[in-house]
């Protein structure tokens, strides 16, 4: 039985050697630019498409100073007609009269006589999809994208922010319970993917922006620090505008976590998802990407990174990795991931199919704790009673005894465990 429920694949969340197959798809139909079997580098473009612009609404009544019906008579374009930036859309033909001009090259889509609003759809722009990962093109989906495969080590995070990036892994701490302090981040961190230990603060993240860091991988983050950092990046006005979306009927929302548009993917009620419309809307505007990608492996608070994850990342210090911070909890599960491609030769002749499947729990399994005061700790299953056990909280549930790396034995419900191997 698969006892990890939080990742979009059945692979264990931390794996030394596995086979990663990544699907790269365009948001809408386009052209695939690589062939089956091609070797690709992270920056290679694998597909591209023309993305139509977001329609612009122009209120003719305010600009022309007439009512909606009168404005209709002043329109100088037909629906579907192309206009260049600065072209007149509506207005009297007499000299000196008010004119409405197109702000950009676009198609005049139409006019609504009830509201007095004209709609312009800007010309499309090119969208290029990169490979993100060094590997081999194993599948081509015509007009849509490709799938890229590589043997790799993988560490999945539990939440993150920021898009897909790649860079060289740089270890900045000596142990998994050491904070990634602001002083550790300097010019030497430029373009790197930093590995911290336990947690990171707002000041340190600001340093990351200043030093053009590409990614940060830490065990945890205090909610208050995240709040402070976001206020800093997004300006209070934008932050408050976003948080007041549901500002009714209970009054002020003083909650510290950014709701919808800032991070549409993190909150369960934001179902923007992968629809083309959502992608168009998110392309510009509130859901602007962070200048770097943040990946948190354990959760919120000041929790050390899981020993396993830390050891794996530390061993890969100096290697090129592909990271993504995308997190979505419902309606298309997505969790952040760190992919460390391995040379093909290193896995020659090995059968990696077992590593694609979820490990099951048994005596001697290695497991990670997912909640409570032992969050993130690793241990070996030293007892697996078949009957439900009474937990310290009084709840009766199936549980396992875990012997942690420091020798402590704890009884934990199976639902709070994640089997790694």
């Amino acid at each position, binding site marked *: 039985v698969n006892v990890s429920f939080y990742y979009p694949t059945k692979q264990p969340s931390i794996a030394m050697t596995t086979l990663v197959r990544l699907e790269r798809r365009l948001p809408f139909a386009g052209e695939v630019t690589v062939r089956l079997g091609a070797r690709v580098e992270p920056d290679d473009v694998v597909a591209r498409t023309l993305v139509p612009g977001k329609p612009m609404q122009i209120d003719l009544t305010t600009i022309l100073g007439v009512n909606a019906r009168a404005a209709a008579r002043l329109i100088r374009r037909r629906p579907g007609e192309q206009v260049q930036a600065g072209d007149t859309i509506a207005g009297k033909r007499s000299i000196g009269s008010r004119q409405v001009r197109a702000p950009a090259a676009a198609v005049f889509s139409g006019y609504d006589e009830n509201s007095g609003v004209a709609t312009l759809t800007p010309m499309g722009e090119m969208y290029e999809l990169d490979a993100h990962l060094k590997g081999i093109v194993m599948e081509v989906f015509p007009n849509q994208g490709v799938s890229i495969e590589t043997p790799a080590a993988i560490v999945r995070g539990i939440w993150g922010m920021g898009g897909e990036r790649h860079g060289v892994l740089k270890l900045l701490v000596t142990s998994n319970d050491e904070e990634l302090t602001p002083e550790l981040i300097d010019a030497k961190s430029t373009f790197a993917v930093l590995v911290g230990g336990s947690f990171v603060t707002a000041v340190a993240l600001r340093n990351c922006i200043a030093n053009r860091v590409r990614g940060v991988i830490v065990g945890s983050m205090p909610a208050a620090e995240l709040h402070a950092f976001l206020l800093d990046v997004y300006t209070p006005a934008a932050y408050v505008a976003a948080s007041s979306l549901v500002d009714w009927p209970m009054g002020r929302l003083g909650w510290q976590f950014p709701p919808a548009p800032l991070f549409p993917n993190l909150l369960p009620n934001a179902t923007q998802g992968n629809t083309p419309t959502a992608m168009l809307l998110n392309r510009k505007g509130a859901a602007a990407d962070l200048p770097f990608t943040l990946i948190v492996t354990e959760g919120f608070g000041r929790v050390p990174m899981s020993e396993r994850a830390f050891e794996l990342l530390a061993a890969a210090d100096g290697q090129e990795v592909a990271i993504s911070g995308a997190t979505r909890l419902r309606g298309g599960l997505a969790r952040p991931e760190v992919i460390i491609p391995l040379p093909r030769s290193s896995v020659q002749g090995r059968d990696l199919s077992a590593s694609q499947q979820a490990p099951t729990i048994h005596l001697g399994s290695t497991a990670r704790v997912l909640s409570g005061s032992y969050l993130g700790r690793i241990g070996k299953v030293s007892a697996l009673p078949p009957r439900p056990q009474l937990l310290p909280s009084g709840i009766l549930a199936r549980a396992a005894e875990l012997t942690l790396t420091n020798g402590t034995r704890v009884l934990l419900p199976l*639902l709070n465990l994640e089997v790694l191997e």
Partner: protein
Amino acid sequence: LDTDGASKHKVESILSADIGSLWTRVALLDVVSGEYRFVARAAAPTSAELPFGDITVGLYNAIAELERLTGRQIVEEGHLIIPQLPSGNGVDAFIAASSAAPAMRIVLLALNRDITARSALHAAESIYTNVLDLLTVDEHLAAGEKPLLEGEWLARQVQRLVALQPDAALIVGGVDGGPVAPLLKLADAVAQAAKERASLEQSVNATPSRLPVIFAGNQSARGKIAARLDETTDLRLTENVRPHLDRERLAGAQEQLDSLYLQKQLTATPGYPRLASWTENIIPTALAEGIITRYIATQYHRDVLIADVGASSVSGFLTNDAAANANPRAAERAFYRVVKGDFGLAYGLPNLLREVGAAAVLRWLPFSISENELVEWALNRLLRPLSLAAEERDLQIEHAFAREALRYIAQRMREQANPPARLAYDLLIGTGGLLANVPRPQMAAMLLLDGLEPEGLPAGSVELALDNTMLLPHIGTSATVNPAAAAYVFDRDSLLWLGTAIVPLAVVANPLPNQPAVTITLEYADGGNPLKAEVPYGEIRVVSLRPDQRAQLTVQPGRDFRVGNGERGKLVRTMGEEVKGGYVGLIIDARGRPLRLPSDEAARFATLQRWQEAIGVVAVEGQARPLPSPVSSQPDLPPLATRIPLSPTHDIEAEAAPPTSASLWHERGSESSARDVAAEAAPPAPAAAELAAPTTEEAPTTAPASNDESLPPWLMADELADVAPPAPAPQPEQAVAATTNNQQALLVAPPVPQPQQEQANVTMPPWLHGEQTDDQPPARPGEMSIPPWLRGADEDERSKTR
């Protein structure tokens, strides 16, 4: 699957699934020993998300577990076996309720922020919705901005509407016959946004969809609204939510929202087409719970409130006669439904926290933690929603959130209630994963009391029950295919009785703390020593009254107090009727309404600690002693109409016509379900035998032991606890006959004489502790105490036919 085939057969065995956002629960109902009974249930995590992306995967897992527990094959080669085969494998019908889909994102549009907007919110909060925003005509004025040009207002609203990406819009405003023009502004904004949305979708070659729009405002605007919106949106016109300023009428809008949810959200659940190929009977869980609420009201004439605290939704259902009492011409009972989507204890935590604020949650904790820690706790739970509260601290935090979720629901109901701000009900049932899995029933009682603050209106007491088997949604759904089965299972197998709560209410603004709020005298029907207890204001006490016990109760409110709608300081007592016990006992909640917690932290900790100890540890003040004076000599006391054993209004059997042939019942019972169950069944539990002295011919079959080695890890404690038919109610037939037509002799089994101290222990059934020492299943004493007033009138008739 071949559902036509099923309809040709009598529906006897029913497989019911309740697919929640986190857990998929299945239950098997079947005819056992001539009665519809709950046979077994199982659960598995819901598989709506990747790597599965199909709810039927989790459903298969749950069914496989059910097959393992019952030894009955239900699925063959990926298909359900319908109808049931002579071999006993398969089921006659499959039904499902679901709340797995994310809530419907909805935008409200109203003229202004007051009355009609509030009605719109009430209508929206009756199915799984997430109200994204309220757009009003005058909002910039309300915010103190200068008036906007018409076009500016429109552009702003359109931009907002497009960015919010709602699944639906609800337009309300104006009383019938009021001005129409402002409503058209709202319609223009929606039309414009719908057009923009369509053009966006078109630009990426997607088939443009029409935004569903419900109009429930001034009816004289219907024509003009339709002219503006018909072309661009999927417009649904319905009655005004506020036809008059003093009248709210939500039914029309609710109906439209329900149908919208069924059409759009439910069907969008991953794997829905596959599920729909199995059964046509798929309804939202909230509707199933609404059915069972109405059922209890009509069948037993009870004013009932059902509260469901789930992972991503919280809901409350209330039906009462209060309106009918106030206005005799209002023939119908009032029915209130509050359903809050994306609001709950796992996926719903961010919204819950945002609505109530961290301080509100923190006040329920008897220890100090910072607001920041609480937020982090909530976020970590959100990231891994299936986690269990393993430590005491986690459980306390979880329960603090649950209290606030319940309070939110109660508050919403009070807004809608008639008369306003008072909720009248005498039966309170808690359900949902959190309540069903509380380690001790006392915790469930405390959660319900703290969260909903029942006032015991009108009679002065309220019975608390727990749906710890989580059967209510199943029963509600099965009522759609076989009402008789639903009725039987509800009567016999669904509820765990926590006890009766007496709630003295203060009639002065600030009663002195520690003055006696109420003095109760309890005369046990089994003849034990009467018990007298005085409860001071601000305290809560529990008096031992086991589930199988009945007692006469006398309540003397203090000088500044009353019970129910009674008079100040006036003594009330049960007249001929008796109060019923439960796993907690008789609870006297003299903490006052509304509940007040000390603002000083140390005092608050002490108060919370005291309350929790008082209800958790059965605390009987002093020794039981004889009554000082014969209170029953006061003849003209108003009855404390707590538990009137009511006969059902109509005969279930006659209505639904279940099989009446004794041989058929027997055959099915012995050949299929009973035999299959017997494969795992253990001998009758000793406790059951002890209590049910005169056994009937149909000897109780009891729960099989849960001693299998290969249990899946996601199988939770409660799933193990109750498998297979619990012992049928052990009432001898004579007793049943007696109870259905009068109000005496409710005692069913000879009492087990026990010293007072031991009674305290009895209130905690061993199977809730999980302290099983052998492989014998523990007896489920809860099943022993089927309340007489919940028994169908047909019971004794059917007993005769056997």
